[in-house]
């Protein structure tokens, strides 16, 4: 396959109702199949940027998804291409049962019933929640909710996954499961996170966003070695990045 740009953002500005700019000229392009971490302090604009990927927020500038510019008449198709996973799974799981939530995307894509059911079963199997379809969302643990939220976008078979803080609020075991799961996903991934271990483990490329601007964009290893850059933007090198030396030789 010819390498194509999955996400192409050019000079994107976005202001909140109060006039404060959340994005101040973001330019970013991500190739199909790339896995990119989006890091930066709270309020840097990470979530705002993700919400632009399927036209929920519309700022000044251009956003192209798989070569198509949004917004346009193509919005439903783009929304099926970009699976947006929200930070709080209680926002994403709005239906009474897990089945209804995972079926929501396919149902709105107008798929026939047997295909909807097939996709729900497939998506739940992908995240290891087989047999959960009749469960009520409010009875799930936080880790299960996160996985159900991911299943609810996987069922649309998106080409791009936009994840917002996938590991926040998870205990170590649930977090480990999620990391192993994300590692084997074939999709293009743009993942906003504070979890620098996660970044170091599965994202070869890292973008630092601060005060609405891309301040660094490059190979994760290189950026993580640049301590002064990390410190300037309130980030930490994952620990243990290098074993500490003990005592004198």
């Amino acid at each position, binding site marked *: 396959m010819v390498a194509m740009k999955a996400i192409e953002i050019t000079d994107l500005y976005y202001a909140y109702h109060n006039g404060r700019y959340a994005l101040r000229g973001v330019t970013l392009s991500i190739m199909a199949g790339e896995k990119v971490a989006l890091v930066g302090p709270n309020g840097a604009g990470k979530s705002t940027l993700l*919400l632009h990927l*399927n036209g*929920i927020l519309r700022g000044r500038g251009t956003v192209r998804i798989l070569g198509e510019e949004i917004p346009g008449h193509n919005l*439903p198709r783009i*929304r*099926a291409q*970009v699976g*947006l996973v*929200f930070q*709080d799974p*209680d*926002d*994403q*799981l*709005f*239906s*009474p*049962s897990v*089945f*209804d939530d995972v*079926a*929501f*995307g396919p*149902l*709105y*894509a107008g798929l026939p*019933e047997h295909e*909807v059911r097939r996709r729900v079963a497939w998506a739940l199997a992908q995240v290891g929640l087989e047999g959960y379809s*009749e469960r*009520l*969302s*409010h009875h799930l*643990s*936080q880790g299960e909710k996160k996985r159900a939220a991911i299943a*609810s*976008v996987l069922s*649309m078979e998106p080409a791009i996954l936009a994840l917002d803080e996938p590991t926040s*609020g998870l205990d170590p075991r649930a977090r480990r499961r999620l990391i192993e799961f994300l590692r084997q996903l074939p999709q293009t991934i743009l993942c906003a996170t504070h979890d620098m271990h996660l970044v170091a483990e599965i994202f070869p490329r890292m973008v630092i966003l601060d005060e609405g601007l891309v301040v660094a964009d490059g190979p994760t290893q290189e950026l993580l070695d640049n301590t002064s850059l990390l410190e300037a933007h309130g980030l930490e090198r994952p620990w243990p990045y290098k074993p500490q030396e003990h005592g004198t030789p």
Partner: protein
Amino acid sequence: MAGEHLHALDGYRARTSPVHHLDARVKLVLALLFILSAVLTPTGAWPAYILLTALVWSAIILSQVGMGFVQRRTAVVMPFALAAVTVIFTTPGRPVLTVWKFDITDHGLLRLISILLKSWLSIQAAVLLTACTPFPALLQAMSALRIPRVLVVILGFTYRYIFVIGDEALRLIRGRAARSGDLNGKGGGTLLWRARVTGNMAGSLFLRSIERSERVYAAMLARGYDGQIRTLNHPTVRPSELVLMLAGSLLLVLIQLLARLRW
């Protein structure tokens, strides 16, 4: 994140009884007809009340959810029926007792007792319905019965988020309790101050809910929501269950006839 949740609102009790297995549509229709029947039963038709009680109690026993459980949940709602208490004064009849300047009439008393009985019967049916039918199935049954989808969807959201908002309220209350130390034996502040704190908590809960509603809407849009409400088709009701529904409806009609012809 795990921990205590607000489970008091969740009325479903998982069992493997015949009542649980029954199609949700059949249960919903029968419960609604039962409530309608209880409401329509004339004042003082005691045998009809006894028959209705026998019906709902049989269903409760069959369902294995526990008579105590149903009665406890019914008791929570019963006080609302007391709103009808004014009928003891307003119904014309022979005065039996005078409270201050108002006469309590015999017909009025009879009517109040009937209303309380009807409420008690109806609430038991509703409690039983929710105890042996998972809420999503109930929602599907409603949309299958052509209840406007907007209403069904609103009910669905209410059911989903009442727990989320309830948990949020629980955390707020816990946060307040954790800081409500008692330094010199007279903590607690004035009533006005406490009312203000409670008001602030309600306000903060309201704001959080509005913000959440915006995020939920964004999540719906992200998955293709376009303003139309869509659901999967419903499988057909099995013939045996259809027969049960007709038999149950017929029984209720018979009870009504009995109540009206005899009284």
